[in-house]
C-alpha cells in the first residue's frame, strides 16, 4: 500500500517586496509572490522522508495541498518542480476562508479524503503570521502534532522522534506516533533546487482543483494601513551637560515618554 505524505503550502508575498496600499486594501499588483519559506522546509522533509521510506521498500506518494485563488497555483507548481508528486488546490477566489479556523476546516476535508499518514507544514506563514492553521488542522484530524521542529528521526514508519529548540538553548524531544502533523522551523533542512528536468515534469504533474468546502470564518481583516513614517533623527549638539539636559527636556516635552 502506498503511504501518503501531505505538505501544506501557502503562497505569500515575498518579504523583500514592498507592500503598497490602494485605499485601505493591499495593492497586489506590485507584489512578488513566493512559496511560504517555512513551507519549503516541509516540502524538503517530505522528499527526504519519501527517499528514506522508499529505500526501505515502502511506496510513498507526496501530495502538496494549497488553498488560495487560482493565481496561487504557481506556488503549487513550484513545489511540484522541487519533486512532490502531485497537488490539490482548494480554490478560494474571494478569500472566503479568511481566518485559520476556516482554512483548517477546508484543509481537513481534503486531508481526510487523502488519508495522509504524515503531514508537514511550515511553522507559520510569513504573511499573516497566525501560527495556528496547521495546529488547528491536527486537532480537527485528531492526530498528534508537534510544532516548530528542527530535527526529525523516524523509527520505522510508525514512530518519529522530533526535536525543537526552546528558550535558553535547551531542546524538547518528543516521540510521536504516526499519523501525525509536524510543523517545520528553520534549521530542519534546506529545500533542494528545482532542476530544469523537474520543472518540466512539474508542468505535467496532476493538480486537482477542488471547490472550497462550506466553511465559516469568524473574522476577516477589513482594512490595512501602513506604519507612519519615522520622524527624522535629531542630533543634539553641545557639551556633555547641555546634551544631557536637552535630551531630558526632549524626552519629557516632545516625546512625552517620561513624566515631569
Amino acid at each position: 500500500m502506498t503511504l501518503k505524505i501531505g505538505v501544506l503550502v501557502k503562497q505569500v508575498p515575498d518579504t523583500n517586496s514592498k507592500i503598497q496600499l490602494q485605499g485601505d486594501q493591499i495593492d497586489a499588483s506590485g507584489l512578488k509572490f513566493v512559496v511560504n519559506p517555512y513551507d519549503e522546509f516541509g516540502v524538503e522533509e517530505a522528499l527526504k522522508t519519501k527517499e528514506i521510506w522508499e529505500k526501505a521498500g515502502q511506496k510513498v506518494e507526496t501530495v502538496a495541498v494549497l488553498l488560495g485563488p487560482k493565481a496561487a497555483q504557481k506556488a503549487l507548481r513550484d513545489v511540484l518542480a522541487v519533486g512532490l508528486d502531485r497537488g490539490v488546490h482548494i480554490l478560494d477566489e474571494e478569500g472566503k476562508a479568511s481566518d485559520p479556523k476556516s482554512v483548517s476546516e477546508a484543509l481537513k476535508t481534503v486531508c481526510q479524503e487523502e488519508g495522509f499518514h504524515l503531514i508537514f507544514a511550515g511553522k507559520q506563514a510569513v504573511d499573516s503570521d497566525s501560527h495556528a492553521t496547521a495546529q488547528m488542522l491536527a486537532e480537527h484530524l485528531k492526530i498528534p502534532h508537534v510544532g516548530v521542529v528542527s530535527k526529525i528521526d523516524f523509527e520505522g514508519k510508525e514512530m518519529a522522534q522530533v526535536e525543537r529548540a526552546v528558550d535558553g538553548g535547551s531542546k524538547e524531544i518528543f516521540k510521536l506516533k504516526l499519523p501525525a502533523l509536524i510543523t517545520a522551523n528553520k534549521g530542519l533542512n534546506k529545500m533542494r533546487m528545482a532542476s530544469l528536468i523537474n520543472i518540466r515534469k512539474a508542468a505535467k504533474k496532476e493538480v486537482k482543483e477542488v471547490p472550497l468546502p462550506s466553511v465559516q470564518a469568524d473574522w476577516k481583516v477589513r482594512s490595512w494601513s501602513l506604519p507612519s513614517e519615522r520622524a527624522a533623527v535629531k542630533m543634539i549638539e553641545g557639551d556633555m551637560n547641555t546634551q544631557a539636559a536637552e535630551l531630558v527636556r526632549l524626552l519629557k516635552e516632545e516625546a512625552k515618554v517620561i513624566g515631569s
Partner: protein
Amino acid sequence: MLSQWVTAVLLVLAFGLFSYNFWKLLQIILAGASRDVWNAYHLRLKAVIDQVVLHKKLFRQGVPGLIHFLIFWGFVILSAGTLEWMYMGLTGGGKFDFLGRTGYGLFLLSQDWFNSFVLAAILVAFWRRLVVKPQRMRDNSSKSRADAYFILALIGGLVATSLLCHAIEIQNYGDKALPSFQVFSSLLAGVLPELTTGGWIYQASWWLHLLIVLVFLNYLPFSKHLHVILAFPNVFFSKVKARGELSTPDLEDESIEEFGAERVENLPWTSLLDAFACTECGRCNEFCPTASTGKALKPKTLMIDLRAAATRRKSLYQQNIEGNAALAALQEETLVPNTFSDQFVWDCTTCGACVEACPVMIDHVDAIVEMRRALVLNRGSNPDEATNVFRNFETSSNPWGLSEESRQDWLVQQGVPLFENSEDFDYLYYIGCAGSFDERNRKVVDSVIKLLKKAEVKFGILGKEEKCNGETARRMGNEWLAQQMMQTTVELLNGKAVKKVITSCPHCFNTLKNEYPAFGGQYEVIHHSEVLDSLIQEGRIQPKKSVSDSLTYHDSCYIGRYNDIYDQPRRALQSVSEKKLIEMPRSRDKGFCCGAGGGRMWLEETTGTRINANRADEIIQSGAKRVGVGCPFCMTMITDGLKSKEREDIVVQDLAEVIAEAVD
C-alpha cells in the same frame, strides 16, 4: 632477398596492428556528443602553426620548451630517415641517393644534425627527470613515469642506432657515404674501431632501429605519448570561438531529457579527444589554483580519469549483451559520482590557467561546466550555498539577495544620469552587482565615475533597471537561470539601443562581450582599465601627482587570460606610479586566480589551503606596498587573503582608485 621479405612482413604486421588499435581508439573518442568543427579553418590552421609548428605554449617555459622543440622537429625530420630505412629494407640496400649528391647530402646532413640534437635533448630530458625533478613531474604516477622513461629510451635508441649505422657506413664506403655532410657521424666513425656493414654490430643496429620504430608505433595507442599522433588533430579541433564563451544548449527542446554531461558520452567528442591527447605533462596542475592548494580538483587527473572512464565504458558497450548485469550497471554510471566527486567538479574557479598552460590545447573548464550543468539541470544537486545564490539571482537579480529597488540608488541620488537612449550617451556604464551593492566596491565605482566625468565622457547608468547578466549562474551550471538572465539583459540593452558598454567587473565584461552575441546582444564592450588607459594616453585624464608606494598588479582571469587585457591596466597604473611596477612571478597569462571565479565566490572553501592566502603570500614576497586589481571579486579575495596573513598594511585598490587619487 630474405631480409627484404622479413622487412615487408614486419611492416605489414606492425601497421596492421597499429591501425586496428587506433581504430578502436577512434571509436571511443567518437562516441562523444557531436560538435561542429568544420569551420573557421584559418583560425584552426593558425592554432596548428602556433602550437604545433612554433610551440608557442611550450615556450612559456624556456628550457623544457626548447628541449621539446628539438625533439619534435628532430622527430619530424628523422621520420624522413625512417622512411629511407624502410625503403632500404624493402629494396635490399637502396638509399635516397636518387636525390642527387647535393640533395641527398642535405638529407643526410639533416639526419646527422637532428640525430645528435635529439640525443642531446634526450639526455637532458633524462637529467631533468632523474636529477632536477620539477614538481609537475614528481606529481606523476609511477606508470606515467615509467611510460616516459620507456619512450625516452626508445627515441634514444632510435637516434643512437642511426648515428652508429651511418658512422659504420662512412668507415666502409668512404666518400660515397658523403661524410662531409655528416659531421657527427664522421666524428663517431673516427673514434670507433673499424667495423663492417656486414658485421653483426651494424646488422644488429640496423634491425634494432627498424624494430624500435615498429614497437614505438604500436606502443603509442596505449601510452601518454599518443600525443605524437593526437596533438595535431586536438589543436586543429580545439575551441575557435572566444575562450570565454560557453556552449549554448537549447533548453526549450522537449526531446532532450538530460542536459550537460551526465555520462561520458554526453561530453562532446572533442573533450574525449582532449583526454586522449593529454601527455600528462602536468603543466595544467602547475598553474591550477586548486591543485596548488591541495584540493580534490587537478586538471590532469580530470583528463586521465576521463580517458579511463571512456575506455572502460566503450569496451563494455562493445560486449553489448542483452541482460548483461555489468552493462546495465554501467549504463547507470554517471560522471559524478562514479568518475569524479562532487567536490572535484565544484572546486574549479574556471580561471583557465590549465587551458592556457596546455600545450595541446585541452579545454578542461568547458568539460567541468558541462558536468555542473548535469548536476544542476538534471538533478538539482549542488552545494547548499549555490542554492542560496541561485535563489537570490531569481528573486533579486543579485547574488546577495538585496532589494533590487536599492540598486545604484546612491548614484541616482548624486545625479549620475540614467541611460535612456543611445542618442544622449556614448557609453552605458554597466556597473554590475558587486559595484552596485558591495560597500567596498561602490568606492571603486565612485572613482571610475569621477574619472569618466573628469574626462567628459558621455555615459549613463541603468540604476535599478540593471540586472545581473547571468555570468555566475552560467558558470555554476545553472544554464536555465543563466539563459533567462542573459535574455533579460539583452532585451533591456537592445531596448535602449546600447552600442558601447563600459564594465567594471571582468565577469560582466566577458559575458557581455563574448556570450551575449549568441543571445542577440552585439555591443562594443570595454573594461574600465581599457577606458582609463586610453583616456590617459589621449591626455583627457592628466595625473597631477604620482604614487610613491611600490605597486604591483594582480591580473584578473576574466580580463587577462580570457580576453588578453594585460598591458592596458599596467600602463594605466604605471602612468601614476613613481616606481616601476613590480611584477609577481605568476602574472599575465600565468596569473594566479584569487579563488572567486566560476561562482567560487559564493561557495565555502573548506578543503586544502586557501587560494587567496596563497596569492597573498606572493604579494607579500613581492615587497609591494599596494596591489592594484581590476575586479571586484579579486578586491574582496585579495583583501581577505592579506588580512588572513595579518598584512593589512598592504593596500588593495582598484586601479581606478589609484588613478583617481593621482588626479586630485
